[in-house]
């Protein structure tokens, strides 16, 4: 029993793709660029001409399922296939999924893709059925990151590193206006 979340010290990202490869290898995600549980999004443009570039507006954002506490995908699924597990992770009853794609359409974060091997929609579940099931306390992306910019842990445990970092540093969530209450936080 935990309430897992993740916080990103996003400005440290060098966009090296280690997290993306580690995730694919750990979780056996099908090859193909459209199949991924997480990705790095290059936001903003480098403006100006070469000799006078403005690099300020560009940032690398860690993108994946935002683990909404009010998850639009969960509400949208006509088959009741999506649920929140004991660790606060939005999960899927695979046998109930018949690829209506309602969850994909409902997700404001584009977090889901079609897992063509298992005929379900898939997304990040914090390595719940791989690493966490094996007793690990880290996700594949978190532990491999050269910047160690991903804080993963129990938001209900005041002593956890993620709780402490969220207490001590300013942070924001993506698209807060939608009221989805994400459990992924971006540290300023």
């Amino acid at each position, binding site marked *: 029993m935990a309430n897992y979340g993740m916080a990103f010290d996003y400005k*440290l990202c*060098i*966009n*090296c*793709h*280690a997290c*993306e*490869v*580690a995730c*694919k*290898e*750990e979780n*056996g*995600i*099908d*090859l*193909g*660029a*459209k199949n*991924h549980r997480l*990705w*790095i*999004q*290059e936001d903003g*443009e*480098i*403006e*100006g*001409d*070469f*000799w006078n*570039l403005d*690099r300020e507006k*560009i940032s*690398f954002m860690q993108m994946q399922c935002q683990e909404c506490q009010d998850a639009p995908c969960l509400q949208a699924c006509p088959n009741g296939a999506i649920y929140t597990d004991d660790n606060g992770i939005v999960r899927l009853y695979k046998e109930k999924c018949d690829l209506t794609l309602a969850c994909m359409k409902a997700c404001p974060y*584009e977090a889901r893709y079609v897992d*063509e*091997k298992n005929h379900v929609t898939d997304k990040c579940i914090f390595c719940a059925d791989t690493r966490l099931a*094996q007793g690990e306390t*880290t996700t*594949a992306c*978190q*532990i*491999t*990151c*050269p*910047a*160690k910019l*991903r*804080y993963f842990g129990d938001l209900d445990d005041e002593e956890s*590193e993620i709780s402490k970092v969220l207490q001590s540093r300013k942070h924001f969530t993506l698209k807060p206006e939608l009221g989805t209450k994400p459990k992924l936080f971006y540290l300023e």
Partner: protein
Amino acid sequence: MKRIETSRRKFLQGSVALCVYATSSFSFSQPKQSSSTVANIPYLCNMCRNKCAGFARVENNRVEKLNPNKYFPKSRNMLCPKGNAGIDALYDKDRLKYPLIRIGNKGDGRYKKVTWDEAYEYIKDKLVTIIDQEKDNRSTIAYCNGEGFNKDEYIKFFGSKIGSANFLDEGSICLNTKLGATQLTIGDVGEMDVAGSDYLIISGANRYESLITPDSVDMIHTKQKLVVLDPRCTVTALKADEYLPLNPGTDLAFCLSMIYIAIKEKLYDEKYVEHYFKDFDKLEKHILNNNYTASWAESKTHIPAQKIEQTAREFFSAKRPLYYLGRRSVWSANDFQLRRAMVLINALAGSVNREGGIIFGKPFVLKQEEINEPLYNASEGRFDLEGIVYGSQKGGSWLNFREKVISKTAPYPVRAMFIRKHNIMQNMPNIAKTKQMLEMMDLVVVFDTMPSDTAMMADVILPECTYLEREDMVMSFNRLEPSLALRNQVIQPLYESRSMQDILKGLGKKLSIPLFEVSAKYDEDLQESIKESGMRKAFMEGGYDLAELYKEDVSVRNKKLIIAQFGEKIYNSLKTKGVWHPYIEKEKELYNDYYEYYPKEKRFYTIKRDYKVNCYLKKLRKSGFDPMPTWHSRYDFTIPENSFRLITGRYVTSTQTATTNNIMLKEFKEKNYVWINNQVAKSLDINEDDYLVLSSAVDSVVIQAYPTNKIAPQVLWFAHGFGTASEELTNAYGKGASDNMIIEDKFEKIYGCATMHETNITIRKL
């Protein structure tokens, strides 16, 4: 518009074919057995030169996941994308699986599968004939090995045991100027303490896309001011506090101006200079007389004079400034003196043998096993350092060697080549000449894991196993926080592949007596010794048993060596954790699985040593070269009208050509694109994805365009590692272009290193 060279992967849906590939690791689709045996085995990565440490999770004898190893100070508990994709190198379907003998023409890829013994027999017959015809001149065999763990053992076999002087390695197409410049200026190649510096200048290196551990990781975690000079806005430049775009090949002008400002404004560490500098008066006079002012440097570099002055003043007033010396470094003809100027800047700031500078440190020195080396009177010396001032006696000069071989100006014919872990058909400029050289050989043997372009030129291909399938000899790492690390075997070699030691053992057994007999025919000293003590004794005592080093398995040799020098506890640490250092298991977690290894007061920032900073190198003056860093008008950045200067580099997901076929890494960069300035592209009506023909004096390639504001107007860039010619590399073949097809084979004369950024290019839209 930016979909090609950025990581907005959602956009890639449109540009990358949506074919459904096989899963990355086929066992994922199989149900996991509940009774599976799981082991976590410590290993050292080999996807690039870094040798980061990891633990391989093995389930039922299959590698399922590679994870970082927190114990290794060097790699700081991380694995990069390439390290993570090591599984796909191990299970690459295109791997070399069996020994092969060529049945077609060189390069056409037709081979027959043979047994190991048939391969050895073929090599023996050819080699005995060649060495007999060359009257026991063993140097008729050239042998080469790229960077890696087993290089020294390979040299022992072909150099010490077989007796050839012609060893070549990656140094002369990589970093020998930097190593030499540091050695000759401060008496040691040193190590840069990136983590300790509070002001870091990087020019000609891209540490966030060409990862070096611990440097790249330390840059992320250290709060320091980062200044980056580059003719291309790399990710390193993007993340820098200050980015100074400049003309290619003009970094030396910037450095000279920094030295000028330091001297003129007396910003240097006077106490340090007085104590350590030799010939400072000569340097001072030279720099001031040449008037290397900031406005002079602006005219060369395109960096505003005020920025140059600001940077110099900030650097010399910082507490622990570091001018990063680079690694893969030989860009321009002035490269040796550029690296010298960088060392001198560090020294002027007193940033040598202290925290945050170039440190000497205290690495562990491993004892070597002794071997009995035969003497071959007929073996001639190497010829590739003729006309080179210093050069590396170990790895020589590839371009000079190749030129002398193909022009038949070498003092004797080179007729056989043994090539290991070195894709020479892709790794050096002007591929046509490498092909010509290999076509001239009577015997080409390639040890590799993949059917590389070089393997396709071989008479015999010997399949080596990957780094996850073998134990290698223990290694010592780093100087500031020294450690020992061991590459343990994770699984048994797949197919019929073998470790290098096993390959050399088999080859040694096959070759020892026949080659000894050739020597006995020509070598008078050996004839005498046979007469005196008999054939058997002369063979044994003379060291002609080529497989001598391989009587015991690597694991047995390691155990003996490590226990004899360091004791059983350390051996056990290397076997169970892959690493040992004095503070292992006393690591302090700083935050979020990021650790401190040596306590600060125990790191070897400063050691007792007498050394001098040599401003003036007499040998250079005697050879007709500049004894001190000097600018010449021929270094000015000028190119013909309608031409571009080609520069090269890497993507973060690729290591030279070794990762080209990796099915996982291919997802991120399937092919390379040529970066062209967006305004220039517009004026030439070149749009994203357009096919361009790039032509140099040596050849042409076709590559798609990526117009961007991140590159200077007269410069083109595309990544190394693509455009492979081998059709056997099915994931890589036909994807992108090879830089070395069109880079001209020019080399500087101090170390004989290929200068990669001296080629001008014209473009034509297809």
